[in-house]
């Protein structure tokens, strides 16, 4: 489908920590781009025809856009709280639609089957009722009051706990997960999935985290999240159809899929269809 409606959005294109003068060749929605550190120390992004593209550095990553962003990058106020560990998980390429990568991140029901003994375990497979809304003021999808039994919810979790989650979709290829924080009750750990759309069926995924955890070594935090995401990767690469279907006749959702339904409805409303399939084929 078209990329026109998503062209003014911000997308992650590099880890800020790996930005260098030599640069990195990558792509955004089919267009080759170059990302490098300029002489002034700022990120420079160049489009396919040599034009300078907008660039900013936020949440551990360099962000850019093929168009003219009307809004600054979405805010994650929690990420600026003092005392959090900021974790650059690193890029993983997935041969799937960028929208499917986000949709999978929003799904809770797969935990016991794909992330067995980490984020879920049989027989605790029930997804309890939760709340989903499209918040009109922020223009974001939110799922709240999500609860799930998890054998090892985070690297800092000792044994099984019922974890509470909130999911947020502030942009078509980005999602933020807020999760019970075992060492600091009352606060939320922030786990994000930033997806760089390379093509309609190919993306680079940049997970990033802002956690309250003073104990766990950084490498263990990185490996925990890479384990989870690479368990998802083989599933994502085998989903059919490859593009995310927005036609309600294509799949039959259940109650557990309410977040996915809201996400798809929100994408359709805005015409965010790069990586989507509008009519069942």
């Amino acid at each position, binding site marked *: 489908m078209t990329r026109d409606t998503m062209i003014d959005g911000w997308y992650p294109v590099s*880890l800020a*920590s*790996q930005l260098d003068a030599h640069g990195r060749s990558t792509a955004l929605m089919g267009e080759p781009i170059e990302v490098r550190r300029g002489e002034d120390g700022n990120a420079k992004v160049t489009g396919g025809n040599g034009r300078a593209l907008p660039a900013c550095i936020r949440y551990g990553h360099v962000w850019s856009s093929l168009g003219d962003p009307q809004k600054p990058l979405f805010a994650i106020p929690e990420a600026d709280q003092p005392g959090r560990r900021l974790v*650059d*998980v*690193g*890029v*993983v*390429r997935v*041969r799937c639609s960028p929208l499917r990568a986000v949709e999978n991140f929003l799904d809770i029901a797969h935990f016991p*089957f*794909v992330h*067995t003994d980490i984020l879920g375990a049989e027989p605790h497979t029930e997804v309890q009722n939760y709340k989903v809304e499209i918040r009109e003021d922020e223009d974001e999808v939110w799922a709240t009051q999500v609860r799930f039994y998890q054998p090892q919810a985070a690297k800092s979790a000792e044994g099984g706990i019922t974890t509470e989650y909130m999911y947020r979709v502030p942009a078509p290829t980005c999602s933020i997960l807020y999760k019970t924080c075992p060492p600091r009750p009352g606060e939320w750990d922030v786990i994000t999935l930033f997806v760089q759309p390379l093509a309609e069926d190919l993306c*680079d995924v940049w997970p990033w985290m802002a956690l309250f955890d003073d104990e766990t*070594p*950084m*490498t*263990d935090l*990185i*490996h925990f999240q*890479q*384990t*989870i995401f*690479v*368990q998802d*990767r*083989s599933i994502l*690469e085998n989903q059919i159809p490859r593009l995310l279907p927005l036609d309600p006749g294509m799949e039959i959702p259940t109650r557990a899929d309410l977040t996915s339904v809201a996400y798809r409805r929100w994408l359709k409303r805005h015409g965010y269809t790069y990586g989507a399939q509008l009519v069942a084929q």
Partner: protein
Amino acid sequence: MKLYDYVLSPSCYKARLMAALVGVKLDIRPVDFHPGAEHRGPELMALNPAGSIPILEDGDLVLTESSAMLVYLAAKAAPQWLGNDTAGLAARVQQWLSFSHRLTASLGAARLHEMLLRPGNIDALQGQGTAALRELEAGLVEQHIRGQRFLASDRPTVADIACFPYVALAPDGGVSLDPYPAIRLWSRTIRGLDGFIEMPGIHRLHELKPEPVPVVGEA
């Protein structure tokens, strides 16, 4: 025994899997291979000038080749895994241990390219990987004709563990296992071994559902 380990590395997984199968407890030292490239840093380069992981340390012994680690773990804890009962079997095991390097260089490099954006000629890597898989498939079919379920014998040996990870993860590098029924059956057999552990991309066998039984009284 200390293993310098990366959770997504199939070569590191060989050592973890072998240790689990023979009941050896490893002291895991996670290495930030990606994105941190810690294996190229001074501490690990001093230990292994080749700049690769895994590295296995046991007292004075430092091993940097995964096949040597498999042999060491088996010799220490479960020598039947060495498969050195006869000259023919010992040679077959060595044949597949050497062959396993071709899997690393082809399917492993294709996976690093497709997943972690490492450089490489992807068409050539996938082509070499496919050639290696065809050879393995033929070898396993011949084993079936001999009535043997594993690569070198009717029992698992270090040869199976040396070859299994890169083969099972071939789809990560864009090489499908659909054309290879003998490989898929072998993979299933290995995943069914007592003590088997998984890694990301290699899923465990979920318990099979009970046999369906006819409901009494239904027409």
